[in-house]
């Protein structure tokens, strides 16, 4: 059986994604944890770009997630200027075990269905352009798209109401 070069890319990226995800979960310091998530999001964007032919989504992922949201997170972390004692959590083994157990159960129930996922992904570029995307957004998803504007507005409104210094 020949090993496809694209498969190697996939497993490499998947490994990086999982590794950085592990980093998010297990790194103690919030800043490094956040950076790990940043790495995770960037690698995911590369995955979208390289294997799924979705350059637009990849860009949005980088700009919105990595650019805006992550900077926001980091900003808040810096703002709080946490002392070492605050982020040094004691590891609670039984909680870890219980959590792992629950996650394992959940993974088990999902992975036993593997036989039902037979779709094949042809790797590489040549996906959909922005035009195809926008077609969907402005037909089937137009109402949802409009609603997203309300969503963002509500989030901003709520954030201001909760966090503004003087109100």
């Amino acid at each position, binding site marked *: 059986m020949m090993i496809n070069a694209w498969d190697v890319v996939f497993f490499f990226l998947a490994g990086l994604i999982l590794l950085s995800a592990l980093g998010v979960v297990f790194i103690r310091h919030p800043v490094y944890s956040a950076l790990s998530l940043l790495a995770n999001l960037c690698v995911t964007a590369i995955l979208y770009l390289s294997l799924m032919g979705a350059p637009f989504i990849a860009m949005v992922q980088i700009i919105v997630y990595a650019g805006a949201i992550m900077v926001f997170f980091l900003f808040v972390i810096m703002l709080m200027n946490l002392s070492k004692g605050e982020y040094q959590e004691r590891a609670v083994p039984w909680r870890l075990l219980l*959590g792992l157990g*629950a996650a394992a159960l959940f993974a088990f129930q999902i992975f036993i269905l593997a036989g039902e996922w037979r779709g094949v992904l042809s790797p590489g570029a040549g996906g959909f352009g922005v035009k195809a995307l926008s077609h969907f957004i402005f037909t089937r998803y137009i109402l949802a798209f409009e609603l997203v504007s309300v969503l963002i507005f509500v989030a901003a409104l709520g954030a201001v109401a909760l966090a503004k210094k003087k109100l």
Partner: protein
Amino acid sequence: MMVLILAVVLIPLLGATINGLFCWFTKRKAHIIAVPAIAIPAIVSLILLARVLQGERFDQVLYWWIPLGDFRVPIGFLLDELSAIMITTVTFVATWIHVYSIGYMDHETPRGYAKYFCYLNLFVFFMLTLCLANNFLLMFVGWEGVGLCSYLLIGYWYEKASAANAGMKAFVVNRIGDFGFMIGLFLIYKHLGTLLFSQAFASAEQLSVGVATLITLLLFTGATGKSAQIPLYVWLPDAMEGPTPVSSLIHAATMVTAGVYMVARTHALFNMAPLSMEVVASIGAATALMAATMALVNNDLKRILAYSTVSQLGYMFVGVGVGVYAAGIFHLFTHAFFKGLMFLTAGSVMHALHGELNLQKMGGLIKKMPITGWTFVVGALAIAGIPPLAGFWSKDEILAGAFMGGHRIIWAVGTFTAFLTAFYMFRLIFLTFFGEPREKHLYDHAHESPPVMTIPLIVLAVGSAVVGLLALAPHGGIVGFLNRTLGEAHEAAGHEGGLTYILMVISVAMGVAGVVLAYFMYMKRMPDPVAMARNFRPVYTLLYNKYYVDEIYFAFIVNPVVGGSRYALWKFVDVIIIDGAVNGVGRLCRLVGGGLRYIQTGFIPDYAWMILVGAVVIYWIGRLF
């Protein structure tokens, strides 16, 4: 006729609304609203009864309460022989109890006074709804409503912790019974597709015996709660914490009989389920006996009456259980008079003695309060089954029905209970009204109650004396009248034949024996020969000559019964098993609740864990089915 029925139901509601909303205005004048609000329906009920006597019936839907497709529940009323008797009884007794309350409650705060009458009227409204409903759901509304009013009225003197707790207990125990009723009601809807009495009973014969048994047993569960039968009777003695007129109206004359009424009303279903009938009769007999034995040893005036009520309700269930529905309802009818009367006299005694209820502190009160005393004696004679007073006729009817129906054991239990009934009632009388006063200062302050209280006593005493004679009215008397609705019971239960008279003699003898025994036990030791010998000379001389027999009887029967009831029944069965079970369920619930609190750690990661595991569980449940 519709207008009259609506008047009967709605006028008490109107009274309650006025006193409820404007209690700050009506205050001490609340009775001016409340008494007519119940007296007018009483008069209207008599008119309705007269029209029913002429053969009129009424069964009509006012409007569709739930008007959907095949699921339709109306608000509608049914007036037939059964409900006519019920509403007449309820309104008549309630009227006099309202009048009595004017005197009894005059120490209350003005607003409390108005509130009291508001609750009382509201209660009558729900009771009449219960009696006049033409479908199960409306009946259930009345059923829960009387429970609610009972809760409010038992807890009326809420400053007393015991009163407030008793109210709570009554409500919760009643709810346990109600859930049986509600499930029974759902099963009726499921199997018969209707909740209307007329349709349900007409198609009752389609039910299989098993389903009918299940339904009737569930309905009977409701009845045991409301009518204080084993095992749900525990609330009734505690309910005596309420004002005495309330005990009289709700916990003796009307609400507690709702279960009996319901069983009689649904007799078409019970007829389909012989097993349920057996259960009803057996529980009724067991309750009658057990409550009577417990009454033997109690020293609390109202509690004795409460146990006596439980016991008499047991009789009524024996009646409906052995199939002589009319006799059960007849006993309900007479019982309303004499038990209402006895509670009111007890209230009168309390009123005179500043709330004292202990028999051992009383004695000789008849000299101070002759009307109260003698009316009580009338009531006691009635309950003891001494002819020609009311209780004799109805109790005899039930016992004869049981015997003729082949329920010999139940008959024997009932007859023995009749003996006990007479005994404890006269023990109460002798200790309270006769003999030497045991607490001098209480005695000295005792006084007869004002006329507003004594007139209702006299009226009800006359009622207790004469209503039994309705049994002798033409066309089969009241029983024949009720049988127009309830259907002829066993053919064998006819009134002819020597056997009937033999049974009658036996039950009278039992009653007399009880009275006599009580006399010897409680008067002989503290003789007041002048008064007693004059009043009871024939009985006195008769029994005096058989002294040793009585002594043996006492040693071998009464002592074991008394001792047994004290230690085995009251201490063990009542306090530990039944009270324990009912309270234990409550405690268990609270314990489970306490345990459940600990999964609520307040820690977000734990909650997230619960959600994830819950998701797994839900998925597997869905997948496996």
